[in-house]
């Protein structure tokens, strides 16, 4: 069955359907994470103002590991956009290298996050320990789940890409663009999480 505007742009929206869908999903994600950020602001002000009883993230959390994770996630955004550009230019093997690198970087992020959590737990710091740790584990946990979901989708694309590209190259390029938009959004959320939780 031929799905209309699967590849070509819709005359009303100006984009193909999947791109419209992912942008609407990302708009809902802005509100999802927005609610958590609002909660963070409220909890911090509620703890006696911005300079009140709120602990400095750097005193409780591992800033060097979080900085490495920031570098990893930004690098994965570059490899993701390069994967899409390579596929668009018809360089399938280059696409596979960049895309596999994106997945490996995402896994590295999760492993480091696991070490960070382990370190917190070893110091008897749990979500129930304090309000700061509750919002820290909630925000980073939800973000980590987004990373995990992205990895699952990207692994599927990595193994199915070549066959689908030979069958319908434009559709595969669009799929990678949509996966990329999600991935860059996850990176964007971390760009704000990092200073808010670790440095302020």
């Amino acid at each position, binding site marked *: 069955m031929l799905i209309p505007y699967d590849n070509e742009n819709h005359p*009303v*929206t*100006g984009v193909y359907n999947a791109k419209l869908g992912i942008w609407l999903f990302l708009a809902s994600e802005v509100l999802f994470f927005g609610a958590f950020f*609002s909660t963070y602001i409220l909890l911090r002000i509620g703890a006696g103002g911005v300079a009140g009883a709120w602990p400095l993230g750097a005193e409780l959390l591992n800033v060097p590991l979080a900085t490495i994770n920031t570098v990893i996630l930004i690098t994965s955004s570059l490899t993701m956009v390069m994967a899409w550009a390579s596929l668009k230019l018809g360089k399938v093997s280059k696409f596979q290298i960049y895309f596999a690198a994106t997945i490996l970087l995402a896994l590295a992020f999760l492993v480091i996050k696991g070490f960070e959590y382990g370190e917190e737990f070893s110091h008897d710091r749990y979500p129930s320990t304090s309000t700061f740790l509750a919002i820290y584990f909630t925000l980073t946990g939800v973000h980590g789940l987004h990373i995990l979901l992205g990895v699952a989708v990207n692994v599927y694309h990595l193994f199915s890409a070549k066959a689908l590209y030979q069958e319908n190259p434009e559709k595969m390029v669009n799929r990678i663009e949509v996966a990329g938009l999600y991935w860059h959004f996850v990176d*964007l959320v971390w760009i704000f999480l990092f*200073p808010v939780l670790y*440095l302020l």
Partner: protein
Amino acid sequence: MSAEHTAEHLQQQVRVYFIVFISLMVLTVVTVAVSRLHLPVGAAIAVALVVASVKGTLVAGIFMHLFHDKFPFIFKVLIFSAIFFIVMIALFMFGYFDTFASERAILEAPALEEPH
């Protein structure tokens, strides 16, 4: 309409992607370095959020192609999302500060006269 990414345009864009990547790395170093200056809390928050916003704009504008795509519909959706986000924070804040205003009003209100 969404602008087409031609092969020639993509070759140019690849250079831009690497420039943006280096800029993001530099800004990450700036974020960490500024946090070590131990600025007053207000100034530290302002600097960190400005740097994060610049980084976010680079990711959304270049990596997510928002600067390239001529797609007014998604801008409308994102503007609505941003407005709802601001309203959400404002409602929390209004609710929080109103609690104190109400408590003060109760404490400072003149005592009601006993009914005769």
